[in-house]
């Protein structure tokens, strides 16, 4: 048996299951009904053959008893006794008349004889062709019926005899023999079987064996199984040409047996017709059931299909969905619930969109304010600073000769601080610009980028011994300008803090970490106290005094912001006077 595929739809599963169930039920019922009808037919046939046999036996018993009485009357007749006693010499006419009275010259009796004890036939009445020759075996009592015998191949004869005595209780002096013929012909058979219904066969023969007849012709004796005599007639099944059902019974006091039999095939013919008709009806029932189940499943699955389509549409973002499922049943309720849900989702979505629009607007306004602020800072803060610086320089240039050394030193401090303030403003603006700028993402060849930044750093470093080693770096996905800014800051940083080393060593490398790549910039510079590692990336956070290493404290904050905007992480490891390593992670260029 092949397994049903798992993705069979309910629309196919339900009718298939129902049809299979219906088929099984109908087949079982059909089988049971057929069995019952068959049993009933066989029982009825058994009853029929039993009743038929019983009736035939009873009828035969009556006629035999009648003949016995007649024969007893005949042998008790004084004229017959006298005739036999005289060895047929006296009273012949009297005897013949008496015999004619007892057994008329009509069938089945075909002849009547009187024998003396010496084996001489005294009288033969009737057809001499049927005469006993030699004399039949003597009977010990009166009214004994003999088995059938065949004569001339076609005739079945049986005789009944009774003894003639001298006086009522005297010695046996002779016998009377009545020879009876069984009529065997198509007409006889039809006549007799017609009485029992045309389909019934009536068999007559000797209980002990051949000959037998079906009243049309001589036949072999039926199987011994059916010829067993029971106390009451029972029906048995046996083979005689074909399968038969028959009941046998012996005529009491004779060796002769009757069998009524029916052909099993004929008995069961109506049940086969019944089976055919019922099969047709069953097929119609299964067909109608299957169609009904299909219709019902369509009725169920059609709304389900609608729901599925609508749900899929909602899932893909088309929220304006409405399903039309009429009725108050479960499906109808589901449909209405679905519609309520869909409109709720739509309402919630539009609310959300409204809110998002509001927030976006608010954000945009805030951003615009921030931009205006940055613009002001950029423009309005720098202008006075430039003036301070410029006029301080003018003072020094134009009136330097008139100034005391202390005045010159103070002017120098002003000069230095305005410079730093300018740098601070520039860095601060760069940092804030970074947060607002849109990412322009693309594939970035990190090896190339680091190499060109390193060239710049080397140029700035001048004659100072500085070794920068760059390992082959996997490409990243990100904004080239921003990443360049971050790398520049890291390398500048490394170059700055290795200033007191000879040579300063900077190593740029990477290692894979799952889907991310970890890039690192390692130096042998001043390092930092690991207790303050968390402060490294804060804006304006510095771990060194300005006299040692200049800077505004914005560089690493910019690195952190760039990396975070790319979805990466940044951290640092280091020891005081033992170098520092800065790590940052980026997604690979192959990622979508």
């Amino acid at each position: 048996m092949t397994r049903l595929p798992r993705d069979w739809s309910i629309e196919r599963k339900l009718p298939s299951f129902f049809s299979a169930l219906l088929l099984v039920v109908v087949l079982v019922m059909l089988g049971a009904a057929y069995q019952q009808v068959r049993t009933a037919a066989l029982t009825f046939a058994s009853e029929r053959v039993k009743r038929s046999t019983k009736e035939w036996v009873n009828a035969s018993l009556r006629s035999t008893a009648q003949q016995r009485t007649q024969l007893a009357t005949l042998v008790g007749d004084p004229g017959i006794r006298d005739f036999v006693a005289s060895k047929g010499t006296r009273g012949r006419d009297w005897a013949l008349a008496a015999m004619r009275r007892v057994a008329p010259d009509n069938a089945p009796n075909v002849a009547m004889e009187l024998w003396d004890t010496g084996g001489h036939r005294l009288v033969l009445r009737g057809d001499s062709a049927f005469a006993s020759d030699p004399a039949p075996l003597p009977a010990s009592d009166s009214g004994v019926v003999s088995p059938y015998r065949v004569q001339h191949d076609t005739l079945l004869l049986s005789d009944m005899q009774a003894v003639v005595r001298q006086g009522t209780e005297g010695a046996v002096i002779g016998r009377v023999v009545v020879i009876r013929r069984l009529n065997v012909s198509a007409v006889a058979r039809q006549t007799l079987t017609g009485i029992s219904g045309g389909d019934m066969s009536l068999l007559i023969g000797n209980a002990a064996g051949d000959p037998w007849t079906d009243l049309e012709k001589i036949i072999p004796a039926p199987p011994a199984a059916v010829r067993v005599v029971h106390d009451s007639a029972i029906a048995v099944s046996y083979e005689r040409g074909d399968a038969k059902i028959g009941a046998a019974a012996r005529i009491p006091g004779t060796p002769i047996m009757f069998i009524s039999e029916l052909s099993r095939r004929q008995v069961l013919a109506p049940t086969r017709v019944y089976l055919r008709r019922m099969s047709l009806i069953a097929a119609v029932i299964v067909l109608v059931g299957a169609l009904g189940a299909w219709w019902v499943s369509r009725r169920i699955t059609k709304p389900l299909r609608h729901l599925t389509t609508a749900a899929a549409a909602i899932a893909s973002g088309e929220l304006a969905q409405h399903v039309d499922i009429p009725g108050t049943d479960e499906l109808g309720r589901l449909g209405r619930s679905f519609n309520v849900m869909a409109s709720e989702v739509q309402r919630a979505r539009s609310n959300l969109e409204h809110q998002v629009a509001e927030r976006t607007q608010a954000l945009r306004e805030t951003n615009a304010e921030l931009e205006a602020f940055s613009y002001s800072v950029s423009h309005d803060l720098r202008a006075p600073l430039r003036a301070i610086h410029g006029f301080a320089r003018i003072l020094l240039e134009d009136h330097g000769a008139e100034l005391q050394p202390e005045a010159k030193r103070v002017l120098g401090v002003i000069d230095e601080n305005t410079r730093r303030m300018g740098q601070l403003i520039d860095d601060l603006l760069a940092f804030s610009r970074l947060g607002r700028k849109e990412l322009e993402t693309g594939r970035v060849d990190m090896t190339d980028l680091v190499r060109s930044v390193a060239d710049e750093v080397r140029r700035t470093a001048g004659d100072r011994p500085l070794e920068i080693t760059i390992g082959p770096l996997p490409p990243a996905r990100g904004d080239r300008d921003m990443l360049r800014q971050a790398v520049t800051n890291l390398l500048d940083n490394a170059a700055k803090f290795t200033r007191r080393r000879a040579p300063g060593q900077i190593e740029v490398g990477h290692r894979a970490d799952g889907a991310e790549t970890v890039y690192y910039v390692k130096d042998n510079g001043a390092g930092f106290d690991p207790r303050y590692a968390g402060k490294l990336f804060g804006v304006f956070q510095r771990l060194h005094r300005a006299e040692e290493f200049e800077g505004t404290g914005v560089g690493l904050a910019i690195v952190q912001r760039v990396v975070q905007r790319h979805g990466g992480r940044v951290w640092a490891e280091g020891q005081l006077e033992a170098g520092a390593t800065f790590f940052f992670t980026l997604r690979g260029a192959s990622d979508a």
Partner: protein
Amino acid sequence: MTQPHEVEILLVEDNPSDAELTLRALKQRNLANQVFVCHDGAEALEFFFGDGSHALREIGVVPKVILLDLKLPKVDGLEVLRRLKEEARTKSIPVVVLTSSREEPDIARAYRLGANSYIVKPVDFEAFARAVSDVGLYWLLLNHPPR
């Protein structure tokens, strides 16, 4: 003060300190004699397109270069730039935007409107003086405007 008909450099600058520093830088290169200063956008427009009420208008005077600040009272620098580049008569005058703004949108808009250079004024005076005098030298002495 230089007369309009002799103008070679038109400086549009509202901040008097910046104006003075600019003039000083130009003076160090001996370029300050033909400089005319407008103190806001409206004055700059008056210089080219006015009805003469401010005695600034002088038909036919074409400076060799305009140094234009962006953040100006009344009419801002970008508007002045737009008007100058719209007018056929003034379209070919080189305009150098000299401003404190480093903002990308400003730079992009200035170039879109036809600015010939965009220079961010450094806070550092030496750097500022160098930038201004380089601009003056370039546009006045090295550049050949169409005849």
